């Protein structure tokens, strides 16, 4: 069930009404309903993979107890069991075919030819997210940050809560579980905030991301025949498409969770207003970045054991983060590009710069220097997205080459200028909202507010009927 499908808009009000009117007496009633709804939501796509979700949940629930109750060495054993179990699920369903194919190619170089069988199953949706939920839970118990949950339903809901089941944000046990265990009461302000976030998320997905996709797909699918300017427009278009798509998804997820009385972690804080790459990573897919920081980078020693180890750890984190996105070399290269871009900042100790407020937080416009810094960061990120978008590293290289070498027929780019029609308003609205990503700033006049609601809803409805409706990009991860 997609957030931008009509089924979801039938499903959501039903669950909402049942939640607040029928199952509202205790937290466990509320949780049981949400758990059933979440399994229904997931099973709508594939009931077979519900078994995988349930097994993964049960195992981590058990490991949590194992880690908490065992003596130190045993505790580590259960932690490793959880890691092996979760990474094992990922290895089989997400990476098996990739590794086998690479192994086959490697042997071919040595003139050894084998034909191993591939499993070729559809990637279970949300697998990268719910396995990370499970691991973070067991990790936190191991580190003494929390105790295991006594109630299986509470834990199962933490792993499978439908707004974040498919594409996150990747929640932390310490943040979400206390909310799961407490009874939620309806808050009008929270529900209205949630409604606004859903509306804004839908606008970003349906109006901006899906419209940009029409242009971007056309450019990327036939990039060898396009002019340099068109290729630049395509790359910029994809940067904003993936941002509108994923942050739109996150807004809908966050808004939906608010309707049920939950607050989720932030995932995006206007990443394209970052002044360097380190700031970008503090603002883009924050829940994943901080997950890797807390459960991989820091346990490996982080930056506390000298520059050499910090460089190694940074490369490992970026490469694994790239690989997390998909079993393909282009994602690894994408991670590698970011690692390389991060190095000058790390080596000159400027990676902790701009950790506070967003650019021009107290001013209307950025300074010329800030503008240049933002443009530089955006350009770097946009070039890296080319490798993310195209399957095959060679294609990415050819695309970038094309930007600097395809100068015939510049008029062709006019056909794709519509990209700017969607990009410019998004930049302007984001700039206006930039001080708080969770709070859609609102006008004080109810009449103007309602007019804006109506206009936005009408535009969303019109664009929903566009030629193509696309899945969320991050569903494939």
């Amino acid at each position, binding site marked *: 069930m997609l957030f931008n499908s009509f089924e979801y808009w039938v499903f959501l009000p039903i669950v909402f009404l049942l939640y607040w009117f029928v199952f509202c007496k205790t937290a466990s009633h509320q949780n049981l309903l949400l758990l059933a709804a979440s399994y229904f939501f997931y099973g709508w796509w594939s009931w077979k993979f519900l078994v995988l979700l349930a097994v993964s949940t049960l195992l981590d629930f058990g490991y949590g107890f194992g880690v908490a109750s065992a003596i130190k060495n045993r505790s580590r054993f259960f932690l490793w069991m959880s890691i092996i179990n979760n990474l094992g699920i990922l290895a089989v369903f997400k990476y098996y075919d990739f590794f086998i194919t690479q192994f086959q190619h490697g042997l071919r170089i040595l003139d050894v030819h084998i034909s191993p069988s591939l499993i070729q199953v559809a990637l279970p949706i949300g697998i990268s997210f719910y396995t990370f939920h499970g691991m973070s839970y067991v990790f936190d118990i191991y580190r003494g940050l929390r105790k295991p949950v006594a109630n299986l339903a509470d834990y199962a809901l933490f792993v499978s809560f439908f707004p974040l089941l498919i594409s996150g944000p990747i929640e932390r046990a310490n943040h979400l579980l206390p909310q799961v265990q407490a009874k939620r009461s309806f808050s009008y302000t929270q529900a209205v905030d949630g409604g606004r976030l859903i509306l804004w998320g839908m606008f970003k997905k349906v109006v901006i991301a899906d419209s940009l996709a029409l242009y971007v797909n056309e450019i990327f699918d036939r990039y060898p025949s396009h002019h340099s300017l068109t290729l630049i427009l395509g790359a910029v278009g994809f940067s904003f498409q993936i941002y509108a798509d994923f942050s739109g998804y996150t807004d809908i997820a966050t808004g939906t969770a608010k309707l049920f009385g939950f607050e989720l972690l932030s995932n995006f804080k206007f990443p394209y207003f970052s002044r360097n790459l380190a700031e970008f990573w503090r603002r883009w897919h924050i829940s994943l970045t901080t997950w890797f920081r807390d459960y991989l980078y820091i346990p490996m020693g982080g930056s506390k054991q000298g520059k050499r180890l910090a460089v190694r750890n940074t490369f490992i984190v970026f490469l694994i983060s790239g690989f997390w996105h998909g079993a393909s070399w282009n994602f690894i290269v994408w991670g590698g590009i970011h690692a390389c871009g991060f190095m000058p900042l790390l080596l000159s100790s400027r990676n902790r710069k701009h950790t506070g407020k967003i650019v021009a937080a107290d001013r209307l416009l950025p300074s010329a220097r800030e503008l240049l810094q933002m443009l530089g960061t955006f350009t770097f990120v946009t070039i890296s997205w080319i490798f993310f978008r195209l399957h095959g590293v060679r294609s990415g290289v050819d695309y970038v080459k094309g930007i600097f070498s395809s100068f015939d027929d510049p008029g062709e780019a006019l056909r794709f200028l519509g990209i700017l029609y969607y990009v410019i308003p998004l930049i302007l609205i984001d700039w206006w909202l930039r001080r708080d990503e969770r709070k859609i700033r609102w006008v004080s006049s109810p009449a103007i507010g309602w007019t804006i*609601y109506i206009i936005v809803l009408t*535009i969303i409805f019109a664009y929903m009927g566009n030629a193509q409706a696309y899945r969320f990009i991050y569903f494939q991860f």
Partner: protein
Amino acid sequence: MGRFLKKISTLLLLEAAVILLVYLSVKKAAPPSPVTVEINTLIMGDSHIQKAIDDALLPASRNVAVNGESLYFTYNKLADCLSSQNSIERVVMGLGYHSLSTACDNNVDGREKVEHDNSAVYFNHLPPAEMKRLALGHLANFPLFSAKVFNRTLAPPGYKDGSDNYWGGYFNEFGRSCFSREKTDVRLNFLFDDHGRERWMSKIQAVYLDSIIALCTRKNIELILVNTPSHPYFRRNVPVSYREAYARIKKDPRIRFLDFSDIPLDDSSFLPDGDHVSVKGARVISGMLVDSLR
């Protein structure tokens, strides 16, 4: 809670009313038909003829072909044009081997996957009885279908706008292109294969082809059917039954037939699917059509 639900319900009701109002007013203010009194030749059909015939080269003509248009919609569009304009003397209509396949039926009655269904493009222009038929056919996906109708009525900017509206027009974005055997196989499979068996020939297409012929005969309009070029590899793989059925249509004495399917063109004159022409191919075929109609 009550306050929240009241507000949401009010908002949704208001929204529904606004959508209806916008729809009706935009529909009413729709620009007049481009088929004006100066036009005496209509070029109709689907993407094959839309991409093949540049109407700028043929005086007093208008290409109104639309990507994926089935003959059911072509018939209704022709009836729509003839009811408002009596200057039409000639209809040039695309009809290829693919036109006989049931692959063309699906978006008439909502069986096509919603995202590929272009029937909403025609909704506002259909007679009430056909509107009802279309709406009922799409009942299972009615919210999305109505959004599509609303979308096409407003026609907000979108990349494919040039090819995805009721009046269509010559549109060929394939400046650099080349035939591909692999893509042609996909195309052949889509058109003529149904899970390993030969796809049935379409009854709907046959009925509306007959209706179009009858309508033109009744209105004393010359109907010229055009088979646009296809790559030799494509033609070789068209099932025999389709070729025989096509040959029977060609013998109909009420129609003039222009068969360009086997004119020699190089690979760059085709799209990768081997079944449509590129800009280069369109130049050739448009010129040939102009010569034939002189």
